């Protein structure tokens, strides 16, 4: 009886203690986790033949690491590259790991690790291990196009990918578009739409949505800027707000950005996102 109640009492005391520890720990800057193995090859040797399972564990670790860091608004992801490298060394055919890496390893902070060169290496290794999978060429071209803005290289990657068996026809169109009009907003939108449609993980899909929203918002802002400029030319003075454009019949209503917030006119006379907007223009190059 006594022993039983002591057990209960101790559990009752343990609960607030654990909560207090959790609170304190959250307020601390998170120390980087430890990678016991830096090389996938060594781990493979130590893995006693369970490489498949180990790869899955490392893949989960990579995703969790990334998710947790992003939740904490981290600006650095120092272990992401290593985790993905180990994952793909353990299981070279884990395609999702390459595709995930191509987006988030290359993406600049805080959305990703900002290591486009590491992402290129990862994808190139993936192509060597999975030569018939044409989408890795798409990812390669994408990194060149979006993160490195190396349009000739991007075009070459799309071109090579389009020659792989089973590649979609638009890969060819993409190669042509990238070569002809690098940096065009429509090309970018097409690419991100592709990413969105073939995204294998929630993170990638969400990232594509955010990028598409940013692209749309940027396009809308530049249209609105043109209207403001026209107003100034025709009326001889700049509008005080976007409402002026509505009153004068330039707009039917105040336009909203993809996240549903209204655009506003800044003091310097330029159109910007509203204060409650969720669109992140810093995603754009």
């Amino acid at each position, binding site marked *: 009886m006594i*022993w*039983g109640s*002591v*057990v209960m009492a*101790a*559990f009752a*005391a*343990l*609960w607030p*203690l*654990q909560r*207090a*520890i959790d609170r*304190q*720990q959250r307020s*601390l800057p998170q*120390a*980087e*986790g*430890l990678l*016991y193995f830096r090389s996938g090859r060594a781990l493979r040797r130590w893995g006693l033949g369970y490489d498949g399972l180990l790869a899955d564990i490392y893949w989960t670790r990579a995703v*969790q690491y990334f*998710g*947790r860091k992003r939740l904490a608004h981290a600006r650095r992801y120092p272990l992401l590259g290593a985790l993905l490298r180990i994952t793909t060394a353990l299981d070279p055919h884990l395609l999702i790991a390459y595709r995930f890496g191509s987006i988030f390893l290359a993406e600049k902070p805080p959305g990703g690790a900002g290591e486009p060169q590491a992402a290129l290496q990862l994808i190139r290794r993936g192509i060597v291990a999975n030569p018939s999978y044409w989408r890795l060429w798409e990812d390669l071209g994408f990194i060149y196009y979006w993160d490195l803005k190396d349009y000739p290289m991007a075009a070459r990657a799309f071109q090579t990918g389009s020659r792989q068996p089973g590649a979609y026809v638009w890969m060819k169109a993409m190669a042509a578009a990238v070569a002809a009009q690098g940096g065009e907003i429509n090309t970018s939108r097409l690419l991100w739409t592709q990413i969105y449609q073939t995204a294998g993980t929630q993170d990638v899909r969400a990232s594509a949505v955010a990028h598409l929203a940013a692209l749309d918002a940027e396009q809308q802002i530049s249209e609105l800027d043109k209207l403001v400029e026209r107003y100034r030319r025709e009326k001889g003075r700049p509008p005080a707000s976007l409402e002026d454009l509505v009153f004068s019949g330039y707009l039917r209503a105040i336009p909203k950005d993809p996240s549903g917030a209204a655009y506003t006119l800044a003091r310097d006379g330029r159109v910007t996102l509203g204060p409650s907007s969720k669109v992140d223009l810093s995603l754009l190059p």
Partner: protein
Amino acid sequence: MISRIITIALHTCKESVREKVLYNLIGFALLLMAAAVLFGSISLGVDQIILINLGLSAISVFGLLIAIFIGIGLVSKEIERRTIYNILSKPVARPEFIIGKYCGLVLTLTINAAVMTAGFYVALFYLQRRLVGPDWIGLQCVYFILLQLAIVIGVALLFSCVTTPILSATFTFCVYVIGNFLSDIRWFGQESGNTSLLKLTSVIYYLLPNFSDFQTISQTAHGVAAPPYLVTANTLYALLYITILICASVLIFEAKEFR
């Protein structure tokens, strides 16, 4: 009562310290540290980080093996070999036996950890030719490891009151592994957005021993000490959890029949 608990603790320690397996484990841990010194010398700039990481990890891993090994022998081996009859037919109450045994094993573990820690500092001294202030953060880390292993012994004690040595070793190991992943498990529950899963993971989170706050090896390797509140909180946490485990074991042990 206290004197009987001390007697049982001392003799349990005397018995288990002489176990040959322990010498082998400690020997292996020391060998690993020596290897780390060699390994560090061919790598660049990070040699003492490697040594600290490897040395403290070795103390933790081999300490765990020792804790499980001696922990399962705590009650189930005594029952299996019937040595317990001799003790319980003496004027010894069953709670005294359990508490005494537990204390004896924690003492054994502390001795083993002390030997390994001494080896670790010898290796570190050999590497640096001196020991400076930040090096002693390792002691704090070893203290956390000891607290953790004291809980592990308690878990082994509880399991060995109900099942065979092999099974209790397996279960104890599982609890240790889960205990290290507890924060991940709860994070998973929070991320899933599923309320019943969140509830389940939260229950597990508060019920099983949570070791994630005891892991300070990599911080130690970078010369970062744990904040003072964590030392207090972890000590308190370990004491509470050990109390739970011992009381639960006594509860089971009091009703146990030795057929």
